[in-house]
């Protein structure tokens, strides 16, 4: 062959090799690579059949990648006993080929091929071409492996991105769950997906006793005794319950593998999210309930304020005033000035034991029953005893009411009084002396039968003022811890030669000044009645104080 023919032949070979390489590097799988290479050899070397095998490592068997329908070699697997080292030792001329080609340290292709018996044997030029094509195969394999590694790296990177995104999205989805059970089921399936676990279980227990169990997948049967490396656990406690997550059997393309540190971090992160979500939901429900309670309390306070007077009857010769200051939104103090059908005026001050809503409820009971009994033809003693029975039946064992009821006959100034365990009201005489109207009976609601309740009579004369108050006044504290005290009240009253309205205002201001920034420890109520004209005397017994 002339030089030019040789050069032409080499040029053709180079283009064929380049085209072959471009073809091979488009292979997506190893069998695809082998099939393309087999086609290359068949076309360029006129081989009748080409079988290609692959051995990935020393300890792995040969794997057939591309086989003809009929084997190209006598033996079923001609490379069974072959060493991995490259053994392309071909001698021309030949019609059958069987050799191995190392492409990496422990990785090898095995090729068996045959030319048709009607064709010429492979010559030296063919063998040289074969060597060049084998080099092309080796190079294409490197490209294939590199791409494979790139894809695996990309898959791994994307998987990590997916895990981070999924963990963040999991938190959002958990918060949107409509109830705790849905939240827990969702959390479990998210945890399983995040860590590629086959199975998950969540148990909820209280004091060691399991109260709920959830599985994912729901109907799957968990392995009875999974290996320790195939278990991943995390738990938290909330409101007395323990929530324990268990994941089993981490999956991979090569079967079950161990959970790793990333999985531990993901599961811990997930359980923390669940706990935080449950805490937030609980606090949110609490705040809604508190808000609802506040609104109900505001309504209750308004109702209670409506039970007590803001204006007082204008009666010739008398001035009446009063106010009530609850230490919470609703209180246990009560006062009223109730015109009776017979023209008399009932003056009531009551103090329910305790504070807040329970006391306020009993106040409304007292208010309702008082109106009912005052409308009847009962004596004050009878009214007191009936109120006592009713309160006993209506309240709990630890609730009672101290109560002062005065019924004023405005024409005469006669005042019939009943003091059921209440703070002794004071009567300021015209000369400034103070008399105490001491309690004659036990508070209402202590005993079903209360014979100690006994009304007495006195008279309110010109220039005299009656002051009724609850112990919230005497118990009001200053910033130094000093109590306002009964003595201070007596003194205040003694010095105050003033009608009821002015007296009430004066005491309010004084208490306000005295307490400063200290909030009231108990409800405070005042009711004052002053007589501003002489009243005719009437026959009868009068209580002298």
């Amino acid at each position, binding site marked *: 062959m002339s030089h030019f023919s040789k050069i032409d032949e080499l040029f053709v070979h180079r283009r064929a090799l380049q085209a072959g390489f471009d073809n091979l590097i488009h292979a997506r799988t190893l069998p695809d690579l082998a099939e393309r290479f087999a086609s290359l050899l068949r076309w360029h070397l006129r081989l009748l059949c080409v079988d290609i095998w692959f051995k990935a490592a020393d300890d792995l068997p040969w794997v057939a990648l591309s086989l003809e329908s009929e084997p190209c070699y006598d033996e079923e697997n001609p490379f069974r006993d072959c060493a991995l080292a490259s053994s392309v030792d071909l001698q021309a001329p030949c019609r059958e080929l069987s050799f191995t080609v190392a492409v990496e340290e422990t990785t090898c292709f095995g090729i068996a091929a045959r030319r048709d018996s009607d064709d010429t044997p492979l010559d030296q030029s063919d063998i040289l071409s074969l060597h060049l094509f084998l080099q092309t195969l080796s190079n294409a394999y490197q490209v294939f492996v590199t791409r494979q590694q790139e894809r695996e790296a990309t*898959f791994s990177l*994307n998987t990590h991105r997916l895990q981070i995104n999924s963990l963040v999205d999991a938190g959002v989805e958990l918060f949107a769950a409509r109830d705790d059970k849905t939240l827990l089921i969702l959390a479990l399936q998210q945890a399983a997906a995040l860590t*590629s676990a086959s199975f998950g279980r969540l148990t909820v227990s209280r004091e060691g006793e399991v109260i709920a169990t959830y599985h994912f*997948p729901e109907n799957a*049967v968990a392995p009875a005794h999974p290996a320790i490396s195939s278990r991943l656990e995390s738990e938290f406690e909330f409101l007395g319950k323990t929530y324990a997550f268990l994941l089993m059997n981490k*999956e*991979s393309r090569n079967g079950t593998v161990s959970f790793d540190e990333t999985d531990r971090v993901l599961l811990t992160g997930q359980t923390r999210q669940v706990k935080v979500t449950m805490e937030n939901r609980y606090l949110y429900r609490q705040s809604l309930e508190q808000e609802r309670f506040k609104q109900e309390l505001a309504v209750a306070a308004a109702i209670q304020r409506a039970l007590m007077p803001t204006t007082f009857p204008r009666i010739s010769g008398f001035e009446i005033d009063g106010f009530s200051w609850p230490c919470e939104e609703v209180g246990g103090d009560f006062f009223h000035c109730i015109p009776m059908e017979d023209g008399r005026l009932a003056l009531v001050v009551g103090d329910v034991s305790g504070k807040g809503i329970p006391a306020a409820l009993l106040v409304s009971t007292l208010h309702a029953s008082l109106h009912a009994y005052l409308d009847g033809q009962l004596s004050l003693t009878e009214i007191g005893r009936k109120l006592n029975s009713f309160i006993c039946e209506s309240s709990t064992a630890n609730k009672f009411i101290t109560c002062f009821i005065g019924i004023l006959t405005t024409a005469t100034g006669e005042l019939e009084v009943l003091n059921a365990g209440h703070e002794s009201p004071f009567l300021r005489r015209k000369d400034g002396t103070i008399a105490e109207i001491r309690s004659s009976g036990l508070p209402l609601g202590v005993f079903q039968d209360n014979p100690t309740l006994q009304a007495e009579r006195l008279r309110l004369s010109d220039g005299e003022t009656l002051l009724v108050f609850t112990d919230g006044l005497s118990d009001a504290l200053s910033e130094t811890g000093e109590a306002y005290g009964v003595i201070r009240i007596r003194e205040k009253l003694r010095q105050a030669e003033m009608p009821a309205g002015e007296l009430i205002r004066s005491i309010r201001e004084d208490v306000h000044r005295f307490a400063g920034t200290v909030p009231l420890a108990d409800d405070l109520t005042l009711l004052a009645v002053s007589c501003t004209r002489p009243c005719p005397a009437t026959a009868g017994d009068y209580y002298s104080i």
Partner: protein
Amino acid sequence: MTSDFGLTTDYTADCLILSTAGYINSDGGDQILAKIQEALSRDVNRVVLNLLDSKVINSIGISFLIEAIELLMNAGGKMVFANLDPAVEKALQIMGLFHFAGRAPSVTDAQKELN
């Protein structure tokens, strides 16, 4: 260990519709891949994967889907996902599947996209 994954097969005139139910994990992904290999052996290379009843998928399940898509592409075919749960759709998006496969809101729309 038994799983709860379910797979139904429906060959139409122009494609294969695979409908899944349950957790698409290694087991589920393997079943999907096997069905697609079977379809290719019957010269069917267009597949609708209906995930209406699958709300959870893990990365191993996704790896099987990637392999299935590659097989279809090698055979000149295509896969279109239908009825994707938002969380599953996002997972497939992050893993890059939609560079090589389509998605549609319904099986009917997916079939149209294949045509």
